[in-house]
């Protein structure tokens, strides 16, 4: 009986492994992927990168222009994340099972959040491109919608996790709905919510580059411009500044997190 139990588990694991290998092999055949060539092209790519993709003295002259665009991109990312956080807070309070007013509102809130979250930021950028054209506003709204969807979801989970005990206690003292929300739910979940907003700012800066390429604004557009005009030296300088900005933001947000938690 017992030996059979373990044998069965092992058979299951083997079966899952077999299916995974099969899927992998199938995809290789379908896409005509040459495994050996895939690996051998790595050194060649690195070789090309080293001989072309580096900033020169001439490209450094473009640095002020790059930094100005980078600053705009960072600010748009932060604005999108913070404004989205305010809206998400409201929807999360209505959506969470602990603080919901009624089931109808809760389902609506969760539904809207799911819709906004599951449409990718690139898809939003292209949809909004029709309405707002090539402007920073398009990028801003694309980032805002995705941040809003994601943060609502994260906030709902935060409230569900920390809330129920003290909500019950304050309701039992006779406190009104808004009093309970402001005296119990928000104080207990705020640090974790701030942490999520910081995470969203980081994510937005990363996606802002891609959104910029699509909408023709910010640092993404600048990269696209120089890359396509074969000016690899300036393009590489842009990549380095983006990486630097992301590392800096990550360092700052980690510091803030340590202080508030």
């Amino acid at each position, binding site marked *: 009986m017992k030996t059979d139990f373990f044998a069965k588990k092992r058979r299951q694991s083997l079966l899952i492994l077999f299916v995974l290998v099969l899927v992998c092999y199938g995809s290789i055949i379908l896409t005509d992927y040459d495994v050996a060539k895939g690996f051998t092209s790595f050194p060649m790519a690195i070789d090309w990168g080293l001989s072309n993709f580096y900033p020169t003295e001439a490209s450094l002259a473009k640095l002020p222009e790059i930094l100005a665009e980078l600053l705009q991109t960072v600010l748009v990312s932060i604005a999108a994340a913070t404004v989205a956080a305010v809206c998400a807070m409201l929807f999360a309070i209505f959506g969470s099972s602990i603080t919901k007013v009624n089931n109808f509102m809760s389902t609506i809130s969760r539904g809207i959040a799911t819709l906004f979250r599951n449409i990718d930021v690139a898809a939003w950028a292209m949809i909004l491109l029709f309405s707002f054209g090539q402007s920073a506003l398009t990028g801003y709204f694309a980032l805002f919608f995705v941040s809003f969807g994601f943060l609502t979801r994260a906030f709902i989970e935060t409230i569900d996790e920390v809330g129920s005990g003290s909500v019950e206690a304050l309701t039992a003292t006779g406190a009104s709905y808004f009093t309970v929300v*402001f005296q119990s739910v928000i104080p207990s979940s705020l640090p974790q919510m701030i942490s999520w907003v910081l995470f969203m700012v980081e994510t937005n800066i990363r996606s802002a580059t891609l959104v910029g390429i699509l909408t023709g604004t910010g640092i993404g557009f600048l990269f696209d411009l120089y890359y396509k005009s074969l000016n690899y030296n300036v393009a590489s300088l842009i990549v380095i500044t983006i990486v630097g900005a992301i590392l800096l933001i990550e360092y700052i947000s980690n510091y803030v997190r340590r202080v508030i938690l």
Partner: protein
Amino acid sequence: MKTLLEVKNVSKQYGTDTVALSDVNFSVKEGEFVSVIGPSGAGKSTLLRCINRMIEASNGEIIFDNVNVQGLRKKELRRLRTKIGMIFQHYNLVMRMSVIENVLHGLLGYKSTFSGVLGLYSEEEKKKALQVLTILGLQEQVYKRCDQLSGGQKQRVGIARALIQNPKMLLCDEPIASLDPNASKIIMDYLKKISSSMGITVLVNLHQVDVALKYSDRIIGVSKGKIVYDGSPKKISEEEINTIYGSEAGELMIEVGGK
């Protein structure tokens, strides 16, 4: 003495076939210390929460302080809840806030939504909170954050929050189930003191039969949503305790009659 609480024919059903309470009847006099004992899932917590309508009873009538609880509208229900303090197994404090802020939360039922949301308390109310904390021996902990306290201290903050409400009755849901024996004794002693010196009625759910027998004026035994014993702790027999817990003679670690 005057009757404070009357529970008549109260039933509670979850869904179509889960019965938590069926036809429960009892009354509690002013200043009485009553323990509700029974196995897990017997409906003790549901019974307690039906009294201040944290859970809505399906049927029956609950009269508290000459008011029919079942018929109250939203505002009146809030006023009723200010007269009933509640204490929980897991303390249910806002752990990131200070001790005194948590105690002041007990006054939120008396406040308008505006001053409740902003947490505006008068000097007098703050002094009252300090006074209550001193009664419970927490004067050293006033400005500490609640997550820095021990379990016993957290529960005392919970009691302080209930006491500042100036309640007529305390509902205690397993107040010592997460505490060590030492802290349990301190908490039970405080509850007994509150009942005898302030004249506040205490209704407490307990898992520990020996504690219930030692502290209570009266025992209510609940089994499968029904009251199977209601009487003095001195008269209860081992057989009756076994009926409550559905156990055979000699299976439980309890000594009846004396301490």
